[in-house]
């Protein structure tokens, strides 16, 4: 327990440093972006029929939400705000706190990503075990190659293909938006059903994108464990197959927890594509929008939130790992 607490403390310390660094990086990158959002906004309003003066004033009011002062002052302000979980105000949302806008979007990213990860994890490790056991057969080969392929193909290719097939060629699934409006939001069958129906393709894309990785990782992990002496020893002691299978599974899954965090990072990164393709109003789309709208505070916030989720996922995965690996629990260094 002490070890876990110590690990947690170490992770938290490192995580906090990391977050500060990322916040700093994103702050400065974001401030050095070229492009004049003010002029763009004026032009946009003019196109919508407002005249120049009015457009300019309206833009001025809008951009009043942007912090002022020297870069350094802004930085100090930003960082001290960060400590209070205040990420500034969004311009495109007319001064709404960035945290609120992010919170709204986050649920549309986090939930599908989690469901997708879990789904692909479950199916992936089962298939991985199978591929490992049948590794010299045709089927194992096909599984492994298809795993590599899926692992290799970028998310947007999967997303586009799924969308083309299931939403366009054979339109059986909704290809955009998160839910239909006509259902009263809440716990009713219609609403939940609509949510689920709209989530199928994005979740499937997340799952497919991650699934290949699981197969590969699980396969190689199982192959390694199968070669371990204790498995043969258990067999020689006449242990039941089911128990031996559990031994293999638990030992093989263990190293996958480190990959879990990595894959979460990958998926969250890929959210931009998937949300763009399926018009899912999550963090990725928000980031993309904020970039085109030059909504600095929002852009920085979205980027930070994505990074922080990955850091947190990393920590959780590691803690989980140490919770089930007795070697780590007792403070021994385990090389993975």
């Amino acid at each position, binding site marked *: 327990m002490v070890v876990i607490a*110590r690990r947690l*403390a*170490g992770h938290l310390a490192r995580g906090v440093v990391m977050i500060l660094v990322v916040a700093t990086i994103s702050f400065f990158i974001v401030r050095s972006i070229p492009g004049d959002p003010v002029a763009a906004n004026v032009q946009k309003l003019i196109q919508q029929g407002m005249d120049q003066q009015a457009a300019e004033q309206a833009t001025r009011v809008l951009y009043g939400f942007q912090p002022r002062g020297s870069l350094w002052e802004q930085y100090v302000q930003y960082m001290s705000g960060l400590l209070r979980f205040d990420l500034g105000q969004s311009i495109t949302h007319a001064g709404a706190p960035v945290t609120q806008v992010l919170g709204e979007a986050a649920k549309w990213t986090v939930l599908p990503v989690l469901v997708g990860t879990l789904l692909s994890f479950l199916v992936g490790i089962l298939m991985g075990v199978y591929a490992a056991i049948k590794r010299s057969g045709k089927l194992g080969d096909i599984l492994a190659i298809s795993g590599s392929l899926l692992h290799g193909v970028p998310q947007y290719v999967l997303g586009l293909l799924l969308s083309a097939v299931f939403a366009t060629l054979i339109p059986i699934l909704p290809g955009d938006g998160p839910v239909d409006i006509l259902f009263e939001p809440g716990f009713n069958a219609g609403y939940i059903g609509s949510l689920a129906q709209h989530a199928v393709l994005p979740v499937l894309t997340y799952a497919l994108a991650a699934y290949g990785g699981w197969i590969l990782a699980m396969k190689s992990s199982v192959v390694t464990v199968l070669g371990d002496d204790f498995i043969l020893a258990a067999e020689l002691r006449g242990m039941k197959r089911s128990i031996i299978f559990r031994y293999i599974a638990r030992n093989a899954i263990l190293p996958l927890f480190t990959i879990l965090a990595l894959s979460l990072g990958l998926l969250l990164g890929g959210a931009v594509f998937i949300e763009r393709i399926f018009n899912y109003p999550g963090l990725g789309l928000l980031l993309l929008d904020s970039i085109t709208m030059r909504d600095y505070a929002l852009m920085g916030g979205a980027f930070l939130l994505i990074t922080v989720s990955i850091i947190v996922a990393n920590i959780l995965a590691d803690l989980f790992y140490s919770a089930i690996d007795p070697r780590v629990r007792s403070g021994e*260094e385990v090389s993975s």
Partner: protein
Amino acid sequence: MITGTGVVKTFKQRGKMLGAREVRALRGVDFAIPKGGAASFIGESGCGKTTLGRIIAGLETYDEGEILIDGVSMSPLKQKQRQPHFRKIQMIHQDPYSALNPTRTVHQTLFAPLALRAGQTGRSRAWIEERAAEVLSLVGLDPGTVLSRYPHQLSGGMRQRVVIARALTVDPEMLVADEAVSMIDVSLRLGILALLKDLRERLGVSVLFITHDVATARYIGDDGELYVIYRGQVVERGAVDTIIADPVHPYTQSLLSAIPVLHGLELPGEQPVTPLESLDESQADEGCLFARRCPFRGERCTSERPLLQLTEGVPQEHACFYPERRSVIARPMSEV
């Protein structure tokens, strides 16, 4: 001539800021290995034999004490400056399988250090080839057949010979052989031991022999000295045959008692010594380090640390308050 006084080495578990564990691997060891001489270290697993060997070969630093190589003190020198001195001492690893680079032929393996020397002394390429053949002949290998082979094409014994040949390319003054025969098939073991002895006699190389098999210590030369090491301390030191015949330290006696008796050829010793408990590194450091396991311990042993000394009536140095001869080793039936 290489001597050491009061060599201390403490390992700190790396990478752990909080609550680092310390391992006292060496607690003030003195040694002296004359030119062309031989010394053997024996002791239980984890008592610090390898550590000391690596320190002597310059592969590990030491924390306290003094090491003199041909009269030059190493302590005040920087790592870089120590190197040329330590080059006179070459290490022969326990595992001949990992000691050779699988991607390089014997020729390439020998060529690199020879080329380096040729470069330093302005010798020709022909010299290198000549010398490569020479060192191989020295270790009893046929250069014609061996030079072009890769390690995996050689047997364990041949590999170990190549490893020794490689060490000889730099004309070392001393070879440190760490369990150099323990991983070699029984039928080949003597060959390597004979080779080491032969090299001593022909080239005047001194040999430091690390082993857990006391019997092998005799085979590198009957003029050799034996160091019995226990938990980082030399507990008995003297001529090999003297100690084998008349060990006085209970620890030495335990070690010798543990040697299997070849029933049918040998009769077991009459007074075998068995330690009271098994080795526990975390035991208290007060008094005699062996006290808790010692069947003969006295009052003094738990409070005072005996130091390596010569006492009357005992030809070898020992670190025991109550040295006593016991008949522990098996003797051949033919002698009886």
